[in-house]
């Protein structure tokens, strides 16, 4: 097999397939994931191959999708839930926060909520309202859950399998705007520590941390900065909660400057919190306060203007400039 070039969508599809082959207890459940293969075709062909009992077309109710998955998990299954879009996870919020996140604790460890909730998240696809949100912060703030995000096909392929194997519930955030981008997937060798942060580009002047769709934007910003003589280190966070502090600290201690990039607005967000922690851990190394470049504090706008809401290369560079020029 070795490596193969494929889209992130295909990589997820292959990853799900492999997980289902390896463990009969793995079930998929979601809206339109059967014949249609999901609105993004991530589950394409899986119902045909694994049957309607393992790839379950759900009645249209998200609380029920998650609520029944809880019961299936109690019964020993490993449900992989597809939320059709980020903005439709909220009807399931209660089940996620009150049951998924807390049942292991409540049962003193007897229940294993080995369950994945796949969430096509972030914007950038020109959709209508509720199809471009970044709700990952709500889940990161909820003890009992893990939150991860992938940014490349290879990570997507391996991360989904790791998430399914994991005995904790994982909110799996898929950057829908990157579904159709291609990359090499090594089908044989899983990357080590797939939930740890990874340096995607080395640099010395500023650390830029990103996840999901913004990783690529950050890399593009680093390209541009390089032309202007600024060396930007770009880190892909991958595990959002918990996150790999060590890799971030090492980088920030080296560069002395950090910009966090996310599509979510800043208030009570993952970026805010990571900047706070890095400030604590790297206080004497920081030449400037850490910044977050993110969405504005408004509902996701009509998508004709979404690129002015999402962190663009320009806005990331502006952040980089600000941490470099701080105080001067």
């Amino acid at each position, binding site marked *: 097999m070795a490596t193969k070039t494929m889209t992130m969508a295909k990589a997820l599809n292959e990853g799900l397939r492999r997980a289902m082959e390896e463990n009969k207890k793995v079930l998929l459940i979601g*809206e*339109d994931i*059967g*014949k*249609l*293969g999901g*609105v993004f075709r991530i589950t394409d062909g899986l119902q045909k191959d694994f049957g309607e009992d393992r790839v379950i*077309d*759900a*009645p*249209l*109710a998200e*609380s*029920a999708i998650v609520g029944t998955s809880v019961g299936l998990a109690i019964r020993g299954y490993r449900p992989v839930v597809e939320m059709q879009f980020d*903005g*439709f996870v*909220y*009807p399931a919020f209660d089940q996620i926060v009150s049951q998924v996140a807390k049942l292991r604790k409540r049962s003193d460890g007897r229940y294993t909520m080995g369950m994945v909730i796949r969430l096509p998240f972030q914007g950038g696809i*020109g*959709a*209508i*309202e*509720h199809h471009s949100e970044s709700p990952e912060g709500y889940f990161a703030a909820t003890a009992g859950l893990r939150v991860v995000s992938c940014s490349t096909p290879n990570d997507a392929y391996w991360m989904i399998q790791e998430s399914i194997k994991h005995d904790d519930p994982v909110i799996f955030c898929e950057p829908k705007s990157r579904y159709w981008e291609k990359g090499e997937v090594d089908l044989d060798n899983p990357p080590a520590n797939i939930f740890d942060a990874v340096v995607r580009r080395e640099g010395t002047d500023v650390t830029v941390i990103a996840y999901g769709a913004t990783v690529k934007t950050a890399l593009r910003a680093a390209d541009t900065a390089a032309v202007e003589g600024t060396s930007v280190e770009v880190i892909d966070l991958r595990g959002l909660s918990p996150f790999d502090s060590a890799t971030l600290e090492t980088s920030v201690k080296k560069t002395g400057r950090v910009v966090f990039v996310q599509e979510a*607005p*800043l*208030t009570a967000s993952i970026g805010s919190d990571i900047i706070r922690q890095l400030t604590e851990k790297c206080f004497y190394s920081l030449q400037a306060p850490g910044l977050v470049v993110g969405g*504005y*504090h*408004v*509902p996701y*706008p*009509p*998508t*004709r*203007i979404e690129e*002015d*809401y999402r962190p663009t290369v*320009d*806005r990331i560079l*502006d952040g980089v400039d600000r941490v470099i020029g701080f105080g001067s």
Partner: protein
Amino acid sequence: MIDEELVQLLTPEGERVVHPEYESTLSGEEIFGLYRDMTIVRRLCNESTSLQRQGQLALWAPIQGQEACQIGPGRALAPMDFTFPTYREHGIAWCRGVEPKEMLRLFRAVSNGGWDPYKYRHSVPTIVLGNQALNAVGYAMGIQRDGAEEAVLTFFGDGASSQGDVLESFVWAASFNAPVVFLCQNNQWGISTPMSVQSKIPLYHRAHGFGFPGIRVDGNDVLAMYEVSKRALENARVGGGPTLIEAYTYRLGAHTTSDDPTRYRIDAEVEVWRHRDPIERVKSLLVHEYKMKQARFDEVAEEAEKLALQLREDVLAMDRPDPLSMFDNVYADFHPLIEEGRQEMIDLGVTGGAH
């Protein structure tokens, strides 16, 4: 399809049906009016689909096949009634007077709404399935508190009928005897999910379990849709409480322009339903019973054509909004993050308007 439970006043062939409880009260001209509405709405829908194909719209949700479900109740509404739609109620919007170009602002992705809901007494679209049913019941509770003789009409699909919010709205409507009519357009599909996944029995039965009347209507029969809606709305206005109307119909087109229905349903099914077209049967009635001349139908076609052209022109002229507008109307009052964001965007030199 045509079962005993179904209220039908006009067959697919355009023949009148005698029903023990309902009869059509409309004159030939009034029926012609419904024909006109449906024809125009269909033409506008087709224009929107092609605008989307040409990259002028982000998305379009066609209503082909469901015109009668919307024009019937749309014309049964009293001016002061209030409606809570989803994303597919273009026919209702039309009846309420929303301008076609306003309907398309959402789909051109220049607005999350599109019109003034108070001007038309037609709420902005609700995309999160089911939310609107509860909002509608709340509005109806407001009507009760005002002592007004008004009703609320709200919409959802066969798919959304499974949402907790829709089901809770039944509990509340019954508990408060709220002046609300629930109109479920059972078009057999929720994207790729067939009706049988949502319920093994007809949806209108649900209402009975909550203690109020449910009724199934031929959703492709505009006369039946009109009469049943009218009576339910009148009943609501005078304190008779809620009704669930299940409009039994079919989505002839794709779920939206992003959808590929060939993946999950067969042509033969679609064909069967094409023969139950809501517009054809009314035309047949008008021709045979009211002896309407082709010229009148041609006039409507022409009018529809003009409106479609106008819509195209309006849509093309619809500029990208000023990015700074994203900060408007988030809060009623001063909010520091709004001001900061706006200032940041200005400092970044983001330019407004078209590009």
